[in-house]
């Protein structure tokens, strides 16, 4: 057995399952389309066309990829530390609230100051929202699965209250906030396309996440807490701090995702602001095998699915929620072959902080 062939086999073990999972998911997706009375080839063709068929389609894939990548990284950081952050959706919304609120007041500032300011606000907001769950866990022993889910709904209610109440646009016509100042808007990368600088921020964040997880002491402590909290504590690692830090950082990235989406795409906050990016993020993180490089690929894949699904709904009459079915099948396929096991563990325990 040469080193080369064992490397090849290891690579096969990493690449084959997600490829198969995607095939299975698309196959079942086609079956669901057929059962729904539409032509699967037409629908999947429209989906592919909508994702990659034109420059505009590519740009839209990038637009969809950005929040999925950032929330996917958020989930990755938490899961690596053994924390089940199901609350990326709520953290994303709080980040968006921060930008909607700050962004209308920074019109006098130059863009180079205004944009970092509002995005820092988004990260702070999302981080603080997640830290609530972290404190409930470390101080009061509240399971973060439940608390982050509850905080999702509270954030949703908060957005509803704000856009119908205190932050409603000045004209009072619609339940939405005023558009953020021009200086608080992230620049577009190419004239005529919606692709924006947020994607670059997300890619840089992926690189930084990789460094944090694999090249820093804090990252080591986080991963150790995730792999075996008892051993990590006995080894003198600050498990409680790692749990709090990982969850706060996770929330900050999710908040940044919401802030960027508002600053670059919607400019306003309204009731249905997020189509569930924070939940898709869980699929993104798992498909990316909790590794930043993998998360980039997975985010692009789900971004393409999302962008294509809109085209599919328009031209083939198949509801775009079909994408949820495909996402679910991808997750089920991967957990069935235990491919989501990372470093010999299968996430079977929870950190008792």
């Amino acid at each position, binding site marked *: 057995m040469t080193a080369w062939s064992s490397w090849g086999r290891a690579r096969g073990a990493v690449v084959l399952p997600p490829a198969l999972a995607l095939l299975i998911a698309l196959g079942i997706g086609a079956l669901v389309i057929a059962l729904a009375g539409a032509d699967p080839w037409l629908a999947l063709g429209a989906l592919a066309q909508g994702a990659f068929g034109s420059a505009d389609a590519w740009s839209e894939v990038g637009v969809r990829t950005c929040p999925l990548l950032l929330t996917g990284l958020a989930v990755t950081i938490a899961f690596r530390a053994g924390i089940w952050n199901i609350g990326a959706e709520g953290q994303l919304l709080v980040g968006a609230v921060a930008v909607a609120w700050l962004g209308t007041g920074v019109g006098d500032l130059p863009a180079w100051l205004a944009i970092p300011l509002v995005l820092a606000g988004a990260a702070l907001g999302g981080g603080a929202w997640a830290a609530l769950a972290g404190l409930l866990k470390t101080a009061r022993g509240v399971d973060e699965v439940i608390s982050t889910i509850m905080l999702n709904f*509270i954030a949703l209610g908060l957005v509803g209250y704000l856009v119908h109440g205190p932050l409603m646009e000045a004209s009072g016509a619609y339940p939405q906030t005023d558009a953020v100042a021009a200086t608080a808007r992230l620049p577009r990368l190419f004239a005529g396309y919606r692709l924006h600088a947020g994607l670059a921020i997300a890619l840089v964040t992926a690189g930084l996440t990789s460094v944090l997880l694999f090249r820093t002491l804090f990252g080591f402590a986080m991963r150790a807490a995730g792999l075996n909290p008892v051993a990590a504590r006995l080894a003198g690692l600050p498990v409680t701090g790692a749990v709090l830090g990982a969850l706060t950082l996770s929330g900050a990235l999710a908040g940044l995702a919401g802030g960027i989406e508002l600053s670059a795409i919607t400019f306003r906050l309204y009731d249905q602001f997020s189509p569930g990016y924070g939940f898709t993020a869980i699929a993104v993180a798992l498909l990316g095998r909790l590794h930043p490089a993998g998360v980039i690929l997975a985010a692009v894949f789900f971004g393409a699915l999302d962008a294509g699904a809109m085209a599919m709904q328009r031209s083939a009459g198949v509801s775009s*929620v079909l994408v949820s079915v495909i996402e679910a099948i991808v997750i089920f396929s991967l957990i069935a072959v235990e491919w989501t096991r990372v470093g010999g563990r*299968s996430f079977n325990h929870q950190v008792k902080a």
Partner: protein
Amino acid sequence: MDLSLLTALATSMVTMAVPLLLPALGELIAERAGVINIGLEGLILVGAFAALIGAWFTGSAALGVASALAAGALLGAGFSFFVVQRNANQVVAGTALNLLAVGLTGVAYRAVFGVTGAALTIAGSAPISIPLLDRLPVLGPAFFTQPPLAYAAFLLVPCIAMALAHTVPGLALRMVGENPYAAETQGVAVRRTRTLALIVCGALAAAGGAYLALAYAKTFVEGMSAGRGFIALAIVIVGRRSAVGVALAALFFGFASALQFHFQALGLAVPFQFFLILPYVLTLLVLAGYVGRSPAPAALGQPYGR
């Protein structure tokens, strides 16, 4: 507060509590067997859809309920394949189940009833009055003028409490949740027990959905489970994983949800959204106050074997 307002509030409380109680009882059984099922929300949604389809095509509410039970049991069995047979992480599998339910019901609904979503109403499940008891002030209209599913839900509470505490299968179920390896040495089939618990959990959660579609809304709306599956998860913890505790917690959360329909009549000058988030805030507060006093089954969330 006058009596009619109190009656209306109590009636809303029970109506809101039943679709929380049924899934919460299902979750109780699953968790006592050591499996946490985050997919409750999706199971409710599928139950609501299956009930509507069944009632729509057969014209019978009873057959609607039956199809919901069948769909829920089937999904419960499917879920058990991943978390019991394949030892998959239960939180991840549950999240996937929720995604699947949203997608399947959304695609199927539009395929069957068209994109327009024309106001679709069915006869639904009519309330049955219990003679004499329905004449009680406040309690009569609230508790004793309900569709059959509601009575079934309330009857299940003592049944499940008794079964868990005083029967051999109930003991076996609890052993599997506390220490599956010890249970196995006593001859308990761990995987079969957990699978059965998840099938029952799926059926009960779907029954909650059937109540929503047939008795509450008398129609189906995409995403009509509206977070009830997650509140039910919280109810199980707040109710300290006992059937009676779960029933009381469900009524409490039903009351908190009912306030949103009556707060104006009650003269409360608070934004509407406050009542939408009230159940979730209450959950966090209760859990934060519980520290260390709500013991979960020792093997909850842990796969068995390997």
